[in-house]
């Protein structure tokens, strides 16, 4: 339904329009003057200079896979992240652990785990849904590649980025 927008009641000076431009330019020149005098510094010379040290703990960068303190890959390829992923960036080929493996009790581990970083939207749902605390969004944000294939992070790359995360759940502890 159509409705009427009340126009603001402008004063005479406001109606003149030019004084406001002058006031705006004054602010700009003030900043210019401060910068020339070296009082403010707003430009960082990326990539020589980076903001990485100031990134907060909860920063959502590239998703990665992590291992536990015994070097076991935490992922058991339950494929919940593949299911939840809104842009369908994750593709997992499930596999089983060999029976002579140190972690044979876990039985299952991913054969292949690919995250297509050209699709990933850094939403963090994979981290949230993971029942094994195996996938984390870390602080890597500069994901580049020369082809679409380059933009796919395979399992080895994901573990390289993720590293080890000790002190999480211990559900596969044989005593439990």
């Amino acid at each position, binding site marked *: 339904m159509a409705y009427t927008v009340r126009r603001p009641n402008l004063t005479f000076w406001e109606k003149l329009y030019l004084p406001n431009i002058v006031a705006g330019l004054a602010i700009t020149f003030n900043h210019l003057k401060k910068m020339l005098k070296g009082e403010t510094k707003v430009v960082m010379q990326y990539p020589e200079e980076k903001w990485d040290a100031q990134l907060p703990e909860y920063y959502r960068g590239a998703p990665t896979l992590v291992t536990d303190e015994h070097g076991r890959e935490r992922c*058991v390829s339950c494929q919940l992240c593949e299911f939840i992923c809104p842009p369908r960036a994750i593709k997992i080929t*499930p596999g089983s652990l060999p029976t002579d493996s140190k972690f044979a009790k876990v*039985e299952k581990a991913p054969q292949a785990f690919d995250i297509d970083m050209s699709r990933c939207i850094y939403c963090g749902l994979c981290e949230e849904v993971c029942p094994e605390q195996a996938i984390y969004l870390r602080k890597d944000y500069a994901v580049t590649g020369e082809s679409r294939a380059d933009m796919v992070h395979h399992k080895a790359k994901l573990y390289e980025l993720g590293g080890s995360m000790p002190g999480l759940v211990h559900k596969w502890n044989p005593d439990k």
Partner: protein
Amino acid sequence: MSTEVPLLNVQIDGVWLQFPKGTKVIDACQQAGKFIPRYCYHPKLSIPGNCRMCLIEMGMPKMTPDRKPVLGPDGKPEIGWIPRPQISCAQDVAEGMGVRTDSPMVKECRQGVMEFLLINHPLDCPICDQAGECRLQEFSVEYGNAHSRFLERKVKKPKNVELGPRVTLDAERCVLCSRCIRFMKEVANDDVLGFVDRGGFSTIACHPDKTLESNYSLNTVDICPVGALTSTDFRFKMRVWFLKETKSIDVNDGLGCNILIGSREGQIYRITPRENNDVNGNWIPDSHRLNFKYLRAEERLLQPTVEGKQTSWSDAVSAAVTKLKSAGKLALVASARLTNEELYLAKRLATALNVTIQDVLPRTGEPDGILIPADRNPNTSGARLLGATGETPGARLKDILAGVRNGSITGILCLGEDLLDCGFTHDDLAKLKVIVVTSILANPTTAAAHVALPGAGFAEKRGSMINIRGRLQRLNKAVEPLGEARDDWEILTDLLAAAGCVHSLHSIEDVFRAMSQDVPEFAGLNLGKIGDLGLQLLNKPETVTA
């Protein structure tokens, strides 16, 4: 029905309803819309009543001293409630019976049973294949507690045990419902499973001298309500919630078991039985359900070939018809594995090409007395009805072979069979002037063929088949054909058009419509009317084992 089954009045959650005598209380409640959770109860098996999940509160009408029911103010019998819960699976409905499925006592009972069932459960849902279709998960959410009060150490039981060549057991997940034991004893007639040990250590095990190797062993995986029994073939392949389930039928024998094809992104992962009490009940043989991998085999034909060279479809089709027309006297070897639609088109093509003799290859084997009949072709009845063969399938094959050997038959159109299986030798194939063959896989005939056309497998096409009991059933498409392979009905309509026969068959529905006009048995039918469970087309009193 000849004998009238009396209806009994039963009160379920305060509502009076009528059920036929002999109905189980658990089924009556389900029919009334009050689902009762259960683990051990299965309608096709005997009733042990050992899981205790289906507890309900039950009552019988109060009686006066002269055994008349006491009527309440509403004219209905007053119910005297039994103060302790009853299992609803081992209880038939009775006149005036009262059932409460959601009273505080029932809720508390279910909660208690769930808590005990989960005491030793390993909670390994992330790696468990049953996750997503697991009754423990479902009932735990619906009737159980959010937290475990169990602080002691859980009992350890054997994991990853090979019960047989196709079934793997994880005893820690088992709830000891005994469905698998009863199935093997009562349906598969191979009593190999049983409980060993006592109390919390009780587990399922095979008889010491035997393994679970029956051809029906994978049905125990289907009826297992939890993840204790898993299919070794499907184990860790794909999570069930990704699978698209397509209702179709099995094509490995004349019965045509109803199946669900589980596929994801063009890849079939598993086949499970679909309930149809007029055909296969709830079961399917292992040999049939695992026979789908040939669709992705190395020797799959992916591209039409003319004289061994890969070519386009249009060139291959016109080359096939030109060659067949110049071949002289022709014979058609069709397959009783083709659908009715394909056989109907084959017949029209045979007429257009002046084929004088045609037959299908019969396949027989020992019936197993449970589901597998002697006839191992899925559509022998359809082939007979549509004139692809005579009363005895395969009777004319030796005439065709004799004709090839004495030189009176010089061309063969072979649809979906290997001529070597039909008694031909490599010399006979070399003698023929023209061989045109459609096939799914490469075989000696496709190697010798002048034109070889890649067709579609059972999970890649729609169509209908008639089983040995005369039941018309429907195939549905679960995945796309591999490579350049095409639906067989499309190949046949193209061949038909190239042979100079004008037609307007542009979809499988068109083909069925044309067939229903030409064949009186199909009159008034279409693919939609066949339905998921099929319909009885020909009245044949044959039994499964015939």
